[in-house]
């Protein structure tokens, strides 16, 4: 675990996770985040103010998307999916001028809402990195293959901060934490868990509410990313 601010910095093997005690099938204890208390903050400013103050390495929000699905899971057509993720992603990508079907090639990293391991896997699919049903194979087949999958040195590093499972889940503050982490990455100030920044764009994702009905996605860009097509 490379993030010094993480609440649960653990050096884990796949066996450690599989051997941890079961909480709710199929989730083991180490598949679940630690519910936590913490705060997170972002400093937001309009373009004129950033220029007036001469802020160095500002990160620009270029796309915002939010969507809801039925709060009561029993009302949903497909109870294993969060369609709010898909809709929020499409709105945010469109605003940022990105393509849902090519998003994997257009961003450097994503900080996803991985309160439980399975949530990160379905988010790969719903945010458009891989087709439906291929989130599991994407991570599984790329283990120890540099340049592939969602790993820190992969195609789209997902949760290089450690995500909610690594950092702890301070409900209500985590979306801000994930956004801040993605911003630090784009500024190349993330430290030991810094990923390679080439396109200058990152995604921050958060979900919440009853049945995780609400999804929010932010696309952000560094100065270099603004110049990229």
């Amino acid at each position, binding site marked *: 675990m490379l993030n010094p601010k993480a609440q649960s910095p653990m050096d884990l093997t796949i066996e450690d996770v599989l051997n941890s005690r079961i*909480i709710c099938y199929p989730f083991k204890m180490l598949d679940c985040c630690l519910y936590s208390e913490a705060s997170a903050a972002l400093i937001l400013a309009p373009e004129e103010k950033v220029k007036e103050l001469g802020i160095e390495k500002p990160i620009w929000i270029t796309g915002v998307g939010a969507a809801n699905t039925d709060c009561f899971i029993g009302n949903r057509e497909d109870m294993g999916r969060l369609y709010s993720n898909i809709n929020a992603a499409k709105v945010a990508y469109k605003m940022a001028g990105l393509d849902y079907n090519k998003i994997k090639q257009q961003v450097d990293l994503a900080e996803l809402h991985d309160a439980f391991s399975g949530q990160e896997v379905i988010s790969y699919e719903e945010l458009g990195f891989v087709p439906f049903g291929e989130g599991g194979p994407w991570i599984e087949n790329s283990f120890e293959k540099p340049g592939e999958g969602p790993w820190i040195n992969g195609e789209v590093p997902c949760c290089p901060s450690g995500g909610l499972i690594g950092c702890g889940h301070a409900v209500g503050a985590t979306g801000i934490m994930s956004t801040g982490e993605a911003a630090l990455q784009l500024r190349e100030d993330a430290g030991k868990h810094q990923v390679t920044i080439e396109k200058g764009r990152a995604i921050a994702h958060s979900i919440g509410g009853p049945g995780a009905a609400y999804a929010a996605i932010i696309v952000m860009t560094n100065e270099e990313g603004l110049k990229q097509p």
Partner: protein
Amino acid sequence: MSKQDFQSHEIRDIIKINYKYTMGGQSKFFIEVMNNKKLLGTKCTNSNCGKIWMPPRINCSECYSPTEWIEMKQTGTIEVSTIVWYTTSAFIKSVPYSIGFIKLDGADTALFQGIFSENLVPSKVKKGRRVKAVFSKNREGKMTDFFFVPEDEYERWIAKPEYEGGA
């Protein structure tokens, strides 16, 4: 009084609160479970919609028209489920047990309810499995008055002294 003089004496105690809560417009569902072992849903009265809500909704969440009560079948299909190994003190004695969303036959939405099995393994409660409602003999008008079991275990469950079949 200086800081040094201050002493704190603490006693651990319990506060008990007696209170009532109402099931409001959905009370009929709980009364029918308690008194008649029936499972009632609601049907939207708008002929262009007609959606069947289970758990019941007093107004249709799709078109906002009023709904009417209808009796539901007590068999259904598991839409999604999990097996619980960690829970609150209220249910800890039942661990492990399954909970899931069950679409009763004829309903458009799914009910969140416990699923019990004599041999609780994930394949018993996976999506698509058929289940049937079993009622406690001692009912209080709560969701815990009934639960679902795999259809092929139904006869054995209702033969147990504390449970019985529905109406």
